[in-house]
C-alpha cells in the first residue's frame, strides 16, 4: 500500500550522501483532550499515575535505515488549584502500545512541592539517544505520564498542559 510513497520519500532522501532528518511535531498528533489533563487525587496518596498514549506516524520507507541519533524536547505547564503534593512529568516512546510505559522515560521533569495556587513550567532536559532502534519504524507510540504524590490533607487538584513535544531523528538512510 505504501510502497510507492516509501519509494518516493526514500529517493528524495537519497538526494545526496547526507543524513535524513525528521523533525516531528509529536504534539500535533495528540487530541486536545490528550494534551490537557485535569486531575484530582486524594490527599496522602504516595503515588498515582495519570497517563495517555497515542500512535503517530513517520514517513514510510525508512524502516531499514539506521538511526544515528534522536533528540527529544518537551515543555509543559502545571497548575495546582487545590491541596498540595508533587508531580513528575514523563514522556515515553515505544514501537508498541503495550510497552509504552515500561522502561526509562525519554524525558522527565519534576514540579517540586506544590500548594494550591502554584503554577510551574516543566522543562525536561533535552534527551539525546544514539542508535535507538525504537525509532526504526513507520509508526510509533508516545506516552505521557503524570506521576502524582499528594500531601496529607485535602485532594490535590490541578491541570497539566502539554505545550511542546518534538523529536529530531537523524537517520542514515538505506535505499535497499
Amino acid at each position, binding site marked *: 500500500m*505504501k510502497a*510507492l510513497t516509501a519509494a518516493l520519500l526514500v529517493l528524495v532522501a*537519497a538526494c545526496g550522501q547526507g543524513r535524513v*532528518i525528521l523533525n516531528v511535531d509529536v504534539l500535533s498528533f495528540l487530541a486536545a483532550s490528550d494534551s490537557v489533563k485535569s486531575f484530582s487525587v486524594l490527599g496522602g496518596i504516595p503515588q498515582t499515575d495519570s497517563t495517555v498514549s497515542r500512535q503517530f506516524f513517520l514517513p514510510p520507507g525508512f524502516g531499514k535505515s539506521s538511526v544515528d541519533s534522536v533528540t527529544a524536547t518537551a515543555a509543559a505547564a502545571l497548575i495546582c488549584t487545590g491541596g498540595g503534593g508533587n508531580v513528575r512529568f514523563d514522556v515515553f516512546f515505544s514501537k508498541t502500545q503495550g510497552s509504552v510505559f515500561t522502561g526509562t522515560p525519554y524525558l522527565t521533569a519534576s514540579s517540586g512541592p506544590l500548594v494550591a495556587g502554584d503554577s510551574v513550567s516543566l522543562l525536561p532536559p533535552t534527551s539525546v539517544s544514539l542508535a535507538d532502534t525504537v525509532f526504526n519504524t513507520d509508526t510509533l507510540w508516545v506516552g505521557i505520564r503524570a506521576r502524582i504524590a499528594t500531601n496529607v490533607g485535602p485532594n490535590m487538584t490541578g491541570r497539566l498542559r502539554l505545550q511542546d513535544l518534538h523529536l529530531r531523528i537523524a537517520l542514515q538512510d538505506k535505499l535497499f
Partner: protein
Amino acid sequence: MRTGVVAVALALLVLAPLRPAHAQFSFDARRYGMGGVSLSRDGNARRFNPAYRALKTNSRTSGTPKFSIPIPIGLIKFFKDHPINQLGSDPMFDPKSTAFNPFALTNLIFNPPIFYEVKKSPTPTNNVEFTIGKNQLIMNLGGSRVLIPEQDFGIGSTSRLFDAGAGFGGFHFGVMGFLQYNVSFTLDSALRRALTDTVTGVRPGDTLSLLSNAVAQGGLAPTVGFAGRLTHGADPATDDGLYLGGAVHYYLGATYGRLTGPAQILVGNPIFGTTPAAGVNDTLRTSNKANGRGVGGDVGLVWVSGPFEVGLGVNDIGAELTWSDTKLQHVTYNTATGNLVTTLDTNHVETKTKLPLTYMANAALRMGTGTTVGGDVVNSGRGTIIHVGVEQRTGPFALRGGVSRDQRKRMQFGLGGGLRLGPIGLDVGFFTHSNSLSTQRAITMATAISIY
C-alpha cells in the same frame, strides 16, 4: 539486490559507449577539442545526410585521419580507484554502504570513465530534512532542490544500430537496424511544490503525480538509396558542386511498447491521519508479434564551393509504422497486496506509431591557411544540439577550440591540440559537460591516437 545493482551498473558501463554515439559524439579527441563539431565527412554526416554518399570521405579535408584510437586514461584511473575484484563490495555500487551515493553512481553511468575527468561535477551530499506534523509535511532537500526538474525530463534517441549494404552507380541497397526510445517524466505542480516548497510543502488531500510517457520500438529496415552529383564546379576534378541524396526505408518493426499514465500518492486529510495511499493507473500497449510495417525516407543536400561546404539531411520523413497485432492493458496498483496488476483491455488490435523526424545541418569553411571553421545543428530525437568549432594547423601542430549548446540548452566549451608525426598523431581535447546530476560543469580530457 546488491549483486543486481552492480550487474546493472556494469552493464551500463559496458553499453556506455553507445551513449556518445547517441549524442553524436565519438572517441575522437579532435572532435572533443572543438566542442563536439566534426569537420570531416565522417559516419555521422553520412548517417544523417545521404547526399554524403556521393562525396569522398577524405577528399580535400587535409588533416582528417583514417581513424582514431582512444586512449582510455579514465578507465585506468577508475579501475585503480575501484579494483575490479572488489566491485561487489565497492561503496560506489553497494547501496548498503553508508558511503553509497546514488547520484555518484548515476553520474558514473551518465559519464562513463573512458576519458580522464579533470574536474568532476560535485554530487550533492547535503542533509535532507522532513518537518512532520499530523497535518504538515515539508521536505527540505537543501542544495539538492535545484535538481528537481521544472519541465519534463528523461532520455530518448533515434539510433541506427547498423547500416550495411552495397551499391553501384550512385545507388545503395542495404538494411539498417533502427531503435527509437523516449522515456519522459513530468512532475505535476503538487509534487513539484512538495519537493521544492519549504514553507507550505504537502497540502492535506493533495494528489502528487509523476506522469510517465515511455515508448520504445525497433526493428530492421531494408533500404534503397541514391546519391549523386547534380552540378559541377568550374573544375570537375574538384568536389565543387551540388549533391543530392535520398533513401527509402521499408520498416519491419520487431517490437513495440508504450506505457503512459501517472504514478500517484494520495495524501490524506489530515496528512498523517493515515499512511498515504499510492495509486497507479497506466496504459500499456505492446506488440504481440514482430509485425510493424511502414515506409519512410531520408533526404539530403550538400553544396561544396571551394573551401565552403554546407549540408542538410533529414531522416525518417513520414515514417509511420502500423502494428497489426497489439494489445492494450491497464496497469493498476493493488493497495491490498502492494503489487502492480495488469489487466487486458483489448487484444489483437491495430496501432500506429511514428518515428520522430531527425536532422543535421552542417557547414565547414577551410580557409587555406590551415584554419578550418565549422558547425552543426543536430536533433537525434530529443532536443537540438549545436556545435561550433575551429581548428588551426601549423606544421605538425594543431590547435582547436569550440563551443556547443547541449540538449539541456547549456553552453559547453572545448579546447584541444594535436601533434602529427607522419602517419601517426596524438590528440588531446578538453571539454565541459553537464550530463551529470549536478548544476556545475565537469571537465573531461580526451586523448586519442590518430592514424593518417
